[in-house]
């Protein structure tokens, strides 16, 4: 565990200084600030809806870019810069290296999301309290849950990108990870396409149904982590919300563990 932690801390220190990631962080923060400032031009209800919607959307999108760009390059960059040689020639197992890189990346993603999230929560709380005289507590709690789900969505996305980075080039990995993310966000669509249906006038090809069934099962369900609607709209609720959140967090952890295990097995055989 010490070795994994050492590699993770080295990765975190290096990743936090990557300009491309800082651009997304600062762009995200700037949009959140502007969103909070300009949404005040609308009515109270509309103002809070726009602020929350924009803020969570920006954190999610910036998180996606930070996560994908970071994870697709973590391993290839180590190979290109040859740091991997001096590390793997030490008594370091390949799975320790991979897990360390993943953990370091996760710490970076967590810090970026947490920074944007904290700024966003503070601004929303200030707006609720000072501008409209509302108790910010419920909104802060709801937004925190939304940010937590975004973080676990990014954990899952990072694991997908890291898994592909073990055997694909960053260029191919970028598009493939995005494709997985888009498909994972459209899980209701893949579910519908995987349904053979019972309309005899429009029979579905068994092959196509089979492909979508596999896709629906294999591709992680990113859509489950988008809980913006109940946060934005006070009339919408998630049934058994704590269980829903806990279940999806567990899903992200298990899925990530599977991807890292398979990734480690492949990386063990990979020549660097």
């Amino acid at each position: 565990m010490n070795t994994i932690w050492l590699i993770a801390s080295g990765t975190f220190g290096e990743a936090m200084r990557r300009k491309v990631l800082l651009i997304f962080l600062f762009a995200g923060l700037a949009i959140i600030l502007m969103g909070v400032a300009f949404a005040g031009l609308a009515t109270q209800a509309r103002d809070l809806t726009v602020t929350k919607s924009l803020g969570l959307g920006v954190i999610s999108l910036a998180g996606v870019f930070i996560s994908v760009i970071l994870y697709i390059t973590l391993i290839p960059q180590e190979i290109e810069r040859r740091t991997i040689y001096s590390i793997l020639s030490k008594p370091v197992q390949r799975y320790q290296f991979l897990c360390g890189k993943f953990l370091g990346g996760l710490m970076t993603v967590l810090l970026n999301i947490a920074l944007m999230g904290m700024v966003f929560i503070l601004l929303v709380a200030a707006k609720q309290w000072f501008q409209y005289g509302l108790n910010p507590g419920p909104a802060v709690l709801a937004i925190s849950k939304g940010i937590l789900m975004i973080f676990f969505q990014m954990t899952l996305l990072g694991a997908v990108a890291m898994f592909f980075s073990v055997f694909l080039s960053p260029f191919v990995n970028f598009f493939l990870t995005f494709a997985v993310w888009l498909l994972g966000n459209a899980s209701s669509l893949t579910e519908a396409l995987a349904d053979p249906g019972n309309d005899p006038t429009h029979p579905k090809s068994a092959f196509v149904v089979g492909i979508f069934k596999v896709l629906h099962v294999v591709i992680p369900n990113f859509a489950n982590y988008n809980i913006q609607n109940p946060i934005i709209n006070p009339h919408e609720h998630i049934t058994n919300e704590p269980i829903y959140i806990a279940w999806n967090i567990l899903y992200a952890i298990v899925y990530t563990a599977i991807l890292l295990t398979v990734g480690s097995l492949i990386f063990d055989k990979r020549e660097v």
Partner: protein
Amino acid sequence: MAQDTIIPSPDALSGNGMAPPGFKDGIGKAIEIKNLVKQYKKVTAVNNISLDVYEGEIFGFLGPNGAGKTTTIKTLLGLIFPTAGEVLVLGKPAGDIDVKEKLSYLPESPYFYEHMTASEVVGFYGSLFGLSGTTKQKRVDELLELVGLQNAGKKSLRAFSKGMLQRVGIAQALINDPKVLFFDEPTSGLDPVAHRDIRDLILHLKSEGRTIFLSSHQLSDVELVCDRVSILHGGKIRRLGHVDELIAGGSVEVVAEGVKATETQMAQLRDLSSKSELVENTLTITTAASTESKNRVLDWVRAAGGNVLSMTQTRRTLEDIFYEVVHQGELETGTAFTVPSALEKNSMEKNLVEKN
């Protein structure tokens, strides 16, 4: 210069029984490479090489770019896997975690996490070996002093020159007090002072009984520090042996005057010498540097009534051998430069004079 090509026997090429000078028989083998083949799709990067490196020796691993040196080193470190053959380091398969505790690697132009200081980087690698606390810090300070960075330990690597990074690389390579060191171009891009410091450090490491596997294009360094060398070309070992043996030979130039040789004596001279040139009354004879050849030429001069004016021995260098091997390899593979170098032109002109 006479081209006394040393054609190694298959046994010599496999490295069997070739302990370096001063080494007792039965000394442990630090590295054993047996019939190593590494194939990348249609390209054979390493083609059935075998060699042993003994404990405590500095072994020079030479070859032009693309000869298969880095591929072999990566195989020895367990970073890549052999297509065929066997690779053992300290008696265990390459990549074995116990072996990694006892070896170290300095890659060419090493890169380290730039946000760290020199002290942190060396400490980071120390932690990978389980060092911690004051033991680690003491070792880090000792090594930074050894590589002359005691005053730069707190500086960020971002501010380091290439030479300073190389020193950090050496410090990290020594953090575990390794038995076997793999150095890939340790003096590449260094200024003459740093270059010499690192060369001296390599000799110091040898004096401590460490085994060093040195890949370098700095042939003068290799000649100075290495016990044995191998020269690779096209994935094959073309020469393998003690440095002194490889550069042995050379030629002797005998200058004589007043030679009045008969036709028969001139015919004898052609057998004795590799080259002879008569200018006015002075005859210059070039022959192999062996005592027998020298004596036969001297006897011939006396028999022909001449006086020996001078006798000069020309020593071959590792660079000569290296060039010879590479050129021979290029001719075999048809990859030789078609534009002759100044050196070659000079040699060709000389040959024409000899023939005329």
